[in-house]
């Protein structure tokens, strides 16, 4: 933690002062107060709870953090997803304090709203009141969701009106260097609208610490299409607790790509609820860990309506003594007939000291469904590494290529403006920069870098 920050912990006094400092409508203040009450009443999750059994947060000290104030403002980390990308708008914050917002006039003139959520909350009260902490994220779910709902300072809003298509992507960056980030993301896609959103988090320095306790709420209206990219690349000492929930309506589609690389410990709940017939969702997630990182992602694909499709793929490659937990559920409500649900988790252990836990789950209450899941764990094939070495690559390079190949299936859904380099490069320097690129292409083309074929059935 940076010593320049003034930290008081999340005390009643600091909350009162925070509320005092906010010039917010009554309903929002009420919502914050209710959430604060929940926050005070709830304990930090216990290890006995199924969700937290594999994630030890006893070394996390909540009182070392506090509600961000203007004095916490810091320099932003470098926005990786903006490299070489033209955007419709970008909104940045650092240590929980809004830094700057850009928004193309040509897009604004179509009725699109984009920018800092705390500012827009005052100007577009009705729209935000209808969506904020209503159907997507429940403020009272646990102590973290309550803290977030009570004390969020900044965030990003994107609203795309009915029938509007925005070609260029929107971008948001939350940066954290020793402070507290409680940012909120609210995306509201009107009927038959279309957009792309690039959401990233990062830190100035690789080993920065801090606390992120955030939430994302995504509404994809009837017939709308949203492509959403999340890159989590916090400093390696950041505690990351997040609730992310998308609600996808009739004939709408959500394509969500997740790159989870950073943080010291992550516990993220990512849920998609398909609420109208014909809704579709595809999630592709990559976890790439090193050192002693612990990444725990809990996904849920909830089929609440018939004739919906969901397809979740999470791949993790683990180095050193890192650990990943992926727990996924396909939940099919009674009456959600003709559901097509798929989930898969593949793990690649690059070290004998890493550990990967996979808990795919199916909870099915309709009979006319097709739900499948699969999970594999393997290591990089010795033969493949040997082969690559005979072609002049170092072992390390060979392993990198194998990992790239392992992840490649997750990138197929990426928006054209974002390449896999954007997502994996930050984690391991030179990861995607194997010099012998024609050899890599050759290797990929001939399929010799697919992992142990008998266990990886695509």
């Amino acid at each position, binding site marked *: 933690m940076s010593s320049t920050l003034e930290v008081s912990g999340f005390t009643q006094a600091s909350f009162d002062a925070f509320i005092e400092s906010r010039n917010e409508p009554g309903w929002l203040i009420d919502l914050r107060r209710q959430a604060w009450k929940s926050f005070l009443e709830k304990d930090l999750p216990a290890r006995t709870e*199924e969700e937290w059994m594999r994630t030890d947060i006893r070394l996390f000290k909540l009182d070392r953090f506090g509600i961000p104030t203007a004095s916490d403002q810091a320099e932003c980390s470098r926005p990786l997803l903006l490299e070489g990308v033209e955007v419709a708008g970008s909104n940045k914050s650092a240590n929980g304090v809004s830094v700057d917002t850009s928004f193309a006039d040509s897009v604004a003139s179509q009725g699109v709203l984009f920018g800092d959520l705390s500012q827009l909350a005052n100007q577009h009260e009705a729209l935000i009141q209808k969506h904020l902490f209503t159907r997507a994220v429940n403020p009272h779910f646990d102590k973290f969701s309550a803290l977030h709902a009570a004390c969020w300072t900044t965030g990003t809003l994107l609203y795309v009106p009915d029938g509007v298509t925005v070609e260029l992507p929107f971008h948001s960056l939350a940066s954290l260097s020793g402070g507290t980030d409680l940012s909120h993301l609210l995306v509201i896609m009107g009927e038959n609208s279309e957009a792309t959103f690039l959401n990233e988090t990062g830190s100035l320095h690789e080993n920065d610490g801090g606390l992120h306790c955030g939430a994302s709420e995504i509404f994809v209206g009837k017939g709308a299409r949203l492509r959403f990219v999340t890159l989590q690349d916090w400093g390696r000492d950041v505690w990351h607790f997040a609730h992310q929930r998308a609600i996808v309506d009739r004939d709408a589609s959500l394509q969500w790509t997740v790159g989870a690389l950073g943080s010291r410990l992550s516990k993220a709940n990512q849920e998609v609820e398909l609420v109208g017939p014909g809704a579709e969702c595809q999630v592709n997630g990559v976890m790439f860990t090193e050192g002693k990182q612990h990444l725990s992602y809990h996904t849920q694909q909830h089929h609440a309506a018939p004739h919906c499709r969901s397809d979740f793929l999470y791949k993790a490659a683990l180095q050193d003594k890192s650990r990943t937990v992926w727990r996924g559920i396909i939940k099919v409500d*009674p*009456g959600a*007939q003709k559901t097509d649900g798929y989930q898969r988790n593949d*793990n690649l*252990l*690059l*070290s*004998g*000291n*890493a*550990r*990967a*836990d*996979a*808990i*795919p*789950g*199916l*909870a*099915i*209450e*309709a*009979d*006319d*469904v*097709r*739900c*499948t*899941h*699969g*999970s*594999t*764990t*393997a*290591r990089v094939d010795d033969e493949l590494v040997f082969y690559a070495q005979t072609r002049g690559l170092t072992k390390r390079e060979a392993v990198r290529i194998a990992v790239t190949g392992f992840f490649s299936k997750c990138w197929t859904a990426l928006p054209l403006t974002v390449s896999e380099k954007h997502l994996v490069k930050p984690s391991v320097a030179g990861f995607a920069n194997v010099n012998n690129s024609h050899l890599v292409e050759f290797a990929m083309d001939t399929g010799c870098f697919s992992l*142990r074929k*008998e*266990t990886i*059935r695509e």
Partner: protein
Amino acid sequence: MATEVAASEKDRIGEINKYDFQTKSEAVFKARKGIDREIVAQISEMKGEPAWMRDFRLRSLDIFDAKPMPTWGGDINIDFQDIYYYLKPTDKQGKSWDDVPAEIKETFDKLGIPEAEKKFLAGVKAQFESEVVYGSLQEDLSNKGVIFTDTDTAVKEHPELLREYFGTIIPPEDNKFAALNSAVWSGGSFIYVPPGVSIDFPLQAYFRINAERMGQFERTLIIVDEGAQIHYVEGCTAPMYSSESLHSAVVEVIVKKNARCRYTTIQNWANNIYNLVTKRAVAYQDATMEWVDGNLGSHLTMKYPAVYMLEPGARGEILSIAFASSGQHQDAGAKLVHGAPNTTGQIISKSISKNGGRSSYRGLVKVEKGAHNAKCNVVCDALILDPESRSDTYPYIEIAEQDVSIGHEASVSRIGEEQLFYLMSRGMSESEASTMIVNGFIEPLVKELPMEYAVEMNRLIQLQMEGSVG
């Protein structure tokens, strides 16, 4: 067991497993309902147990009291103080045939179970007369040094051997119901197979039946010494009828170097039963442990047979089938722990949900650090037969070693309309066609069963599909 047993099979196992009942009468023990230190001490005293076992029971009771109810699995709604924890044989066998509910009798008839066995299964006291056959089997086994007795007798007659292993595979702390069993256990089988001895016919729990075997808290301990082989079979396809609503067994199996053990269970509990069972085996170097586990009936079954592969080359295989119908929740599964290099595991799970039944697969595959070259494959398939039914799958996979190959696949589906249409176009009724498809679905399990069980299993599935059972 069944009437339709192949002649050759009959010659080999004979009818010995049918009528062998211990008829020795013992003093009636009028235990009161409920569980406390007094009851537990009394059970131990009634059995004339050594102090160590009494202390083990009392310590287990403390653990049982301290442990919370599981918050996962099924909804357990049991009043522990409204159960008789110890019933002497005479109490239970005093029941008359007239007390047995009509639907149970009817099912016996449909399954073709002989009169004498029907009565036994229903807990009715009956006359039996094949001591001789049983005696010769027992003699043959004991000539080979095999010990096959009930666990209560083993406490008295084989104290050192029993004590060396008892409660070491499943300590009372393991879970609330293992603690309960450890406090009030009664009956169950104790088997020791000496090095190199191979028993080539399935040993059936019926061989060893005395009234206590029918207890709700049986405790089974099987030790298969180096290079030995055994196939143990428990249960039957007829509905187990019991006036008590809780069945909670503990089964511990030790499979030593190069040994092999298969443990087959087919159980079909009456609809009021909570069937909460802990089964675990350890397999040492190049040993093989197989669980074949079929679960039907009951209000709630929670059962996850486990194999811990502790030395190189050990193998664990678990085949599980669950059929849940109206008012039934089968929360069944399997656990494999790879604790050594070159260990191999396989889990095949098949579940069927029908008439509002709920079946869940809950399993664990764990590869510990250093378990190089561990290989494990898990396949779970679930079939849902109507919109009221439910299926869940929760496989846990924990891998802490890189040099492994682990795969898991699961699918949930319903009977394909094309399949049905095809069969019906060949003149089958929808029910017949469904039954045929379900039979095909559980084929991998049925073919592993001893012949008479396979026959009964198929017949039982047919009854279940017709909706006349359960």
